[in-house]
């Protein structure tokens, strides 16, 4: 069954404490792996697209990586404004599969 699983469901970090969010996928014929940030009551905001294993993308304190089975979103020295839910989505053919997200809280 094609699906996307994110872990952990929730993560609390002290400001400056680096960590990683995991996205495991069992989507056949992957056409793209997408990371989004979603703030409460708002639509998801696009962060990264990864298309092939070994690919990496960086933006400020965030870095996304991709293997054949999973993707990681690394957060380096997070700040309170990084608090949000991070969604992962995998695409094959015409189907988008979303995970349920990791809710990140960064404590000052």
């Amino acid at each position, binding site marked *: 069954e094609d699906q*996307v699983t994110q872990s952990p469901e929730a993560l609390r970090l002290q400001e400056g404490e680096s960590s990683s969010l995991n996205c495991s996928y069992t989507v056949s014929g992957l*056409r*793209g792996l*997408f990371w*989004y940030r979603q703030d409460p*009551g*708002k*639509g*998801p*905001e*696009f962060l990264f*697209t990864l298309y092939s294993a070994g690919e990496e993308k960086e933006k400020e304190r965030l870095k996304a990586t991709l293997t054949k089975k999973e993707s990681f979103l690394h957060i380096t020295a997070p700040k309170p404004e990084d608090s949000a839910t991070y*969604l992962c989505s995998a*695409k094959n053919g*015409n*189907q*988008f599969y*979303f*995970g*349920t*997200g990791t809710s990140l809280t960064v404590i000052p």
Partner: protein
Amino acid sequence: DAMVIQNPRYQVTQFGKPVTLSCSQTLNHNVMYWYQQKSSQAPKLLFHYYDKDFNNEADTPDNFQSRRPNTSFCFLDIRSPGLGDAAMYLCATSRLMNTEAFFGQGTRLTVV
């Protein structure tokens, strides 16, 4: 500069009373999507348009319909809203089927 605009942001409707949610885009993207997202759940794709070609997900209830009169606009019609249809409805666009999606701010639907 909002690129995907959803109206209204909040909608309250009565049980069984038809309601329409709207979405417009300034990106000139080919693909437009409607998602339903309930609290702490992943967005669930209801349907999408590639240009004028409509694609309905197999498990989307018949109660949900969509219209795309032109490239810029897309509407979600809920013919007879039930209490279980209360959710955030997200519109998104993408240039192609395998490129990133840009989401609107969503419409929070409450059914009373």
